[in-house]
């Protein structure tokens, strides 16, 4: 068995997601053994490759450092993976927007299925994954020679840095032709806060926040707790906040140590994105709100009074 992982990186740094994917790969090779290689594709990615080489369990890092792979556009990145993956039994990536964009394209090029968003490994060919917005968990077995898999990072604890030294780093020469797609621009939300899917604490607002300005009520608490700020789909649909803050089936899946839901009723859609959090707090004035059925600590209160008080007492 041998596994190739597409590394995730942003702003010149290896993303935390990759360490979770390596953990999933370790479970796949646990019984029978096998190599875990990480592919770092991008432009000027030497430092990222070195960081990947320090992850525990990584056998080898392969680096495709070329302008063709800047921004990891689907067309050249899938062509690169297609050229490399023939020697492997498994291809893994995080179920991020990068992994979701690129991996199905590779799967189709290899004429194999993809297994999306696994949350557990039962054996090298059998995996658990949520379906119907997490309202059912399917156990599925791949019958393909190559297993193409995206990994829901919250299902696997990140591997640490290796204590036995760094893995070898080797360059890949393959350069994909791409006349079909061009990167134009990127508008990434600038924030000093941790990224939603990697934060230790997340505080989210829902429709009960009333409007976008009121989301500033969450700022002080987020500052004190080092939390990321999220939102329910209802708050996004109402135009309070941008979609990249959305937690839920159609947004980000989070599983922090502490999740605070404020003015969120708790639609299935939202629960699908946060119910694996370790501790859930709900603040809502409607004591019948379904969010209280999953909350460890529920506070029935008017959020406009409770939030300032909570901020002052933390």
């Amino acid at each position, binding site marked *: 068995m041998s596994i190739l992982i597409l590394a995730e990186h942003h702003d010149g740094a290896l993303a935390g997601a990759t360490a979770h994917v390596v953990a999933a790969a370790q479970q796949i090779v646990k019984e029978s053994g096998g190599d875990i290689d990480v592919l770092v594709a991008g432009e000027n990615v030497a430092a990222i490759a070195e960081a990947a080489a320090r992850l525990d369990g990584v056998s080898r890092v392969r680096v495709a450092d070329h302008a063709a792979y800047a921004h990891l556009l689907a067309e050249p990145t899938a062509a690169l993976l297609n050229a490399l993956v023939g020697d492997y039994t498994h291809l893994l990536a995080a179920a991020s927007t990068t992994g979701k964009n690129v991996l*199905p394209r590779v799967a189709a090029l290899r004429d194999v299925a993809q297994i999306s968003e696994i949350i557990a490994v039962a054996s090298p060919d059998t995996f658990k994954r949520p379906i119907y917005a997490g309202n059912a968990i399917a156990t599925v077995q791949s019958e393909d020679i190559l297993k193409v898999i995206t990994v829901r990072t919250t299902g696997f604890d990140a591997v640490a840095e290796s204590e036995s030294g760094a893995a070898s780093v080797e360059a890949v020469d393959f350069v994909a032709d791409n006349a079909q*797609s061009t990167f134009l621009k990127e508008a990434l939300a600038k924030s000093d806060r941790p990224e939603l899917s990697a934060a230790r604490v997340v505080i989210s607002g829902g429709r009960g926040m009333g409007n976008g300005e009121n989301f500033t009520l969450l700022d002080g608490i987020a500052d004190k707790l080092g939390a990321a700020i999220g939102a329910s789909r209802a708050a996004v649909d109402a135009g309070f906040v941008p979609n990249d803050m959305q937690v839920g089936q159609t947004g980000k899946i989070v599983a922090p140590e502490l999740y605070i839901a404020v003015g969120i009723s708790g639609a299935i859609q939202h629960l699908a994105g946060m119910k694996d959090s370790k501790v859930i707090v709900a603040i809502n004035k409607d004591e019948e709100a379904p969010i209280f059925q999953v909350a460890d600590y529920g506070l029935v209160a008017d959020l406009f009074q409770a939030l300032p008080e909570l901020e002052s007492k933390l």
Partner: protein
Amino acid sequence: MKVLVAVKRVIDYNVKIRVKPDHSDVDLTNVKMAMNPFCEIAVEEAVRLKEKGIATEVVVVTIGPKAAQEQLRTALALGADRAIHVDTSAETDERVESLGAAKALAKLMEEEQPGLTILGKQAIDTDNNQTGQMLAALTGLPQGTFASEVVIENGKAQVTREVDGGLQTVELTLPAIVTTDLRLNEPRYAKLPDIMKAKKKPLSVTTPAELGISVASRVKLLKVEPPAERQGGIKVGSVDELVDKLKNEAKVVA
């Protein structure tokens, strides 16, 4: 420019699903079905392109059992011109997987030669998020996934994509494949006269065999279970009590 739209029949998003007692699958008996919400957005986008004079014809396709023709009629009522049903009832009574669906769509694209093909980014039943990307691979075309804005100009498509942390805009040569995210548009409701008119719009039927492709399953569904139930906790009476619990009981706040 012809626009092809793929739609999928799924459980209505308001329905709370049940797992069958034998854990073989989700129970869909007598459950309300509907067009996948992301596919509604795809139909809407195509119809708007036609209203702007960019699209000349909107062709809607579904792959599935005979009952899926209901969703084609819905798409026709929303403004699509013509429908194609790839009837899979002879091949399988199970779901058609993404790769099989992509193969059927790729064959139809050979025949129809659309300038743009729009799909929903994922279906809310299997939550796979694969078919559009696979279709792009099989046809050798560029892809703009998770689109929140699509601009067709000078023979190219500028697609703004919802990515982790914000938005990314790419320019694609045409023909291209686009998959829709939630904020791309707000789909209209079909008006009664349009629903009546839709019944007379052309709907042709083909099969995977006629298209010369296989929709055979590659992934075995071994078991379906309900998720581990999370136990509700307690209600606290005040912010003070909440802070105390978080500090001293849950120990998640220093």
